[in-house]
């Protein structure tokens, strides 16, 4: 596998959890779903449950006319109605000391994932990244099955008849967007934006991984003398001491294709 990041943004399927009797382990081992097996449907990932339902015309687009009134609100349906499975497959065959991370840049609001029958938890919170080392649970033949069960926010709240800014404000008990209960400029979002709403990717590294570099510049002599400070974390995930060469390189594009290194 080539070092670097690959986005998983196609070939996703989705289904309402209450309509699936299989477990995550079965979905990712003996009974993987296909697009043609109801109630599975093509999913929009990144995206939300409602985004997928609108894409498949299971519900009308809430932003036209009074269509939003025809979509059942989570307060009336219950959280399980908008608790959805998302499923996909990806090809990855590691070499030697290579490692693989499965990255979710953001989900809403919590979840569990199953990869080739192994379960991992995606803890609560709409604004946090999840990066899981899945090196040891990849399929030997390289074809990997991934199922993610996503749960709505814990406190989806109920929209009072008079509406209002943020409905009954229950959503404020969670760490999530607050407009989803409706505001003066926005109708309530029926699933409170439950889903895998940001980028999903896999990243292949060697034994040592770079984590969250921080770049800072400092200025002196009226911006003539400038320094770039770079701090980063490294993690050695191998079983032996890693002798590393760390490189930092700064280039800027001059006119045309000429680069200054």
């Amino acid at each position, binding site marked *: 596998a080539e*070092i*670097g990041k690959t986005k998983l943004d196609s070939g996703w399927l989705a289904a309402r959890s209450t309509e699936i009797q299989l477990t995550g382990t079965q979905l990712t081992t003996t009974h993987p779903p296909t697009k043609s097996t109801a109630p599975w449907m093509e999913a*929009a990932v990144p*995206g939300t449950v409602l*985004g997928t339902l609108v894409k498949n015309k299971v519900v009308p687009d*809430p932003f036209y006319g009074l269509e939003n009134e025809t979509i059942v609100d989570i307060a009336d349906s219950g959280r399980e109605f908008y608790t959805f499975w998302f499923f996909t497959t990806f090809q990855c065959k590691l070499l*030697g000391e290579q490692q693989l991370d499965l990255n979710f840049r953001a989900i809403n609001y919590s979840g569990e994932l199953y990869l080739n029958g192994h379960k991992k938890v995606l803890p609560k*919170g709409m*604004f*946090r990244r999840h990066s899981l080392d899945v090196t040891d649970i990849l399929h030997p033949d390289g074809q990997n099955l991934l199922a993610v069960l996503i749960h709505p926010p814990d*406190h989806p709240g109920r929209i009072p008849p008079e509406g209002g*800014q*943020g409905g009954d404000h*229950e*959503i*404020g*008990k*969670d*760490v999530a*967007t*607050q*407009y989803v209960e409706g505001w003066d400029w*926005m109708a309530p*979002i029926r699933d409170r934006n439950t889903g895998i709403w*940001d980028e999903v990717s896999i990243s292949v*590294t*060697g*034994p*040592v991984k*770079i984590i*969250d*570099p921080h*770049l*800072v*510049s*400092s*200025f*002196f*002599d009226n*911006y003539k003398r*400038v320094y*770039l400070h*770079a*701090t*980063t*974390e490294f*993690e*050695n995930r191998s*079983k*032996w*001491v890693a002798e*590393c*060469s*760390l*490189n*930092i390189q*700064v*280039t*800027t594009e001059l006119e045309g294709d000429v680069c200054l*290194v």
Partner: protein
Amino acid sequence: EHLQTQHMLIHPGARVQYTFPQLFFYKPNLWWPNGMGKQALYNVQISVEVKGYGKSDSWSHLFGFRKIESYIDNATGGRLFKVNGQPIFIRGGNWILSDGLLRLSKERYRTDIKFHADMNLNMIRCWAGGLAERPEFYHYCDIYGLLVWQEFWITGDVDGRGIPVSNPNGPLDHDLFMLCARDTVKLLRNHASLALWVGGNEQVPPKDLNDALKNDLKLHPYFESSGET
């Protein structure tokens, strides 16, 4: 002078923090907000090679050299901004999010943000009831020179000043709030356009959260001296 290699040993299973020796630049092209100059961006690449293995990982980011300062002006009570030592009159727009169902895309971000630049604005304020905006949003704000005022997830209406009054102490799990805030800062902190973190909309976050945010986000003392001759 802009290429540097360092050597380091990392023990099995260890996670270490490392700071490169600072890189010197003489009169680099500075990043300026829309209407004040060019948005010069440099491609910073960090890579690690392991002896006996080869290239292990790499990372890159478009970085802008700029210094953004802001402070409350006692005469007006308003917040004054300076960029690279030059005062700037802020012409800002309110931003909630691209799409209510979070159908986000680079194309939509580029179009929306270029629209703000074409309207001759130089700041976008991300409202607390919406999102911590995404790296693609900030990328185009870097490109088009829109400074970003990013609020955390506390609004007056929902957290203590609405009708009915609710959640006066904010979200139930303060540790989770701070975990999300810290991870969001790490996700976005290298963008030239990021000008100001704000606790919330029309509301000060609960004291423990506000103190923690102020503590985590204060300028590192090492950089206080920056700017002297």
